[in-house]
């Protein structure tokens, strides 16, 4: 089997996390909404324990954690859930950036089709959205600013500290899509100025199908969201549906490990990165996104003259990699992120994303180098 280098798409599941999924599926399968016997009480205890652990990573209170099916749902809730409030307050101006995930861009496009005014902030060549441009388009009546934490295609950490300064004292709600950086970069998401945070479990070694929306209370009140689903009143009336206890417990365990093992994991990712950079230094490649802002576990490169799918196919027996985000690669659409960064169509079409984690085994880098050198020779 090739070594899996697509951890930005999804991570493997930690063994202790998988053990909890089994436990709460087979043995302790109670419903957290039925705390009238030990089955239900234990399920509820597990959910509240997980809520605490998930919140702790970003210094949020447990009552600020709303469990969802994943970051896509969380992003949709944070953006579309504001429609009623927007109509009431007549504030219908929304800002987001050109390098957001489709789970943000498409709900924002929906708002635009329904009468909202939208400004899309451009990106710089270093892979970060432009805070200067954001400052230019910010208006007194801006309802929502939606920015990502870490880009899923490039691994580039975004300038949230600067956005925090910009938005201090402004009434706009601030939503951050933290799917790719939660549990990996620990400082920026602690900002109390961020009103809403979208999180994903399967990017931090929990299974797919679980995430959260952190809603930071201000003066004791949640951001003015309306639910998108009805029928049960779970999660403080914001997200109806029986809680998947086994996934929630798993997410909690994964969040706990993300905090506890952070330094150790980061060290392993940096060591791995050194090997990747050593290999790349022998090749004709261009990095997409400034190295100084890129998190240790991922890199996006372009191989001039070699199409992404050609490289992926050539490498498929040694490493499993991707060319763009998992959510858009199946559509064969060129990366809107790299295009927004000013990369040429040729650079975009030859881009590759390698992403790894602390569980990634050793790679036969000599084999990778040989294959890529041969591709270069074929090209010339």
């Amino acid at each position, binding site marked *: 089997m090739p070594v899996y280098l697509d951890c930005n798409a999804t991570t493997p599941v930690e063994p202790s996390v998988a053990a*909890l999924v089994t*436990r709460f599926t087979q043995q*302790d399968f109670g419903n957290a*909404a039925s705390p009238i016997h*030990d089955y239900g*009480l*234990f399920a*509820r*205890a*597990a959910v*509240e*324990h997980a*809520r*605490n652990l998930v919140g702790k990573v970003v210094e949020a*209170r*447990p*009552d600020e954690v709303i469990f969802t099916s994943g970051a896509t749902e969380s992003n949709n809730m944070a953006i579309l859930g504001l429609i009623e409030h927007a109509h009431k307050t007549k504030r219908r101006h929304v800002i987001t950036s050109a390098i957001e995930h489709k789970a943000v861009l498409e709900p924002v496009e929906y708002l635009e089709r329904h009468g909202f005014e939208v400004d899309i902030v451009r990106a710089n060549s270093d892979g970060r959205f432009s805070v200067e441009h954001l400052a230019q388009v910010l208006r007194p009546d801006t309802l929502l600013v939606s920015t990502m934490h870490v880009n899923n295609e490039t691994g580039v950490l975004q300038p949230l500290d600067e956005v925090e300064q910009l938005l201090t004292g402004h009434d706009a709600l601030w939503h951050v899509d933290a799917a790719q950086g939660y549990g990996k970069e620990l400082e920026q998401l602690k900002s109390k100025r961020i009103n809403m945070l979208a999180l994903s479990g399967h990017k931090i070694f929990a299974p797919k199908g679980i995430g959260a929306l952190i809603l930071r209370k201000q003066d004791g009140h949640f951001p003015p969201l309306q639910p998108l689903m009805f029928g049960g*009143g*779970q999660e*403080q009336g914001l997200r109806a549906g029986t809680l998947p206890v086994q996934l929630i417990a798993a997410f909690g365990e994964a969040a*706990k490990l993300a905090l506890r093992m952070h330094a150790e994991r980061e060290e392993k990712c940096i060591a791995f990165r050194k090997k990747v950079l050593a290999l790349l230094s022998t090749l004709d490649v261009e990095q997409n996104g400034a190295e100084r802002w890129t998190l240790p576990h991922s890199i996006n490169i372009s191989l001039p003259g070699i199409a992404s799918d050609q490289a992926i196919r050539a490498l498929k027996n040694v490493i499993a990699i991707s060319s763009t985000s998992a959510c858009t690669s199946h559509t064969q659409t060129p990366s809107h992120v790299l295009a927004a960064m000013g990369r040429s169509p040729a650079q975009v079409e030859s881009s590759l994303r390698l992403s790894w984690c602390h569980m990634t085994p050793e790679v036969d880098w000599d084999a990778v180098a040989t294959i890529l050198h041969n591709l270069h020779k074929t090209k010339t």
Partner: protein
Amino acid sequence: MDVFKRLEETVNKQFDHGDLPKWLADPALEVARSPQLYQDNEYLVELLLQQVEEYDVYAEAGCCKWAYDHEDVARTLRWLKEGK
């Protein structure tokens, strides 16, 4: 520091300076000082630790609890004894 040491410290702190009553502190300390008996059930020990850390006599009741009261701690201690 492992979970048992953290539990011992937290129980002592909550007993000396918080509201944790002796009838809960004593059995919780017994768990903390018996890792050989409970090391296979670290998940519940972690849960107990969280409940002791956030022990509140006036914990809210309802669908979601933001603190833990004596019933929660006593129940987790019972689950540990029963080897749940």
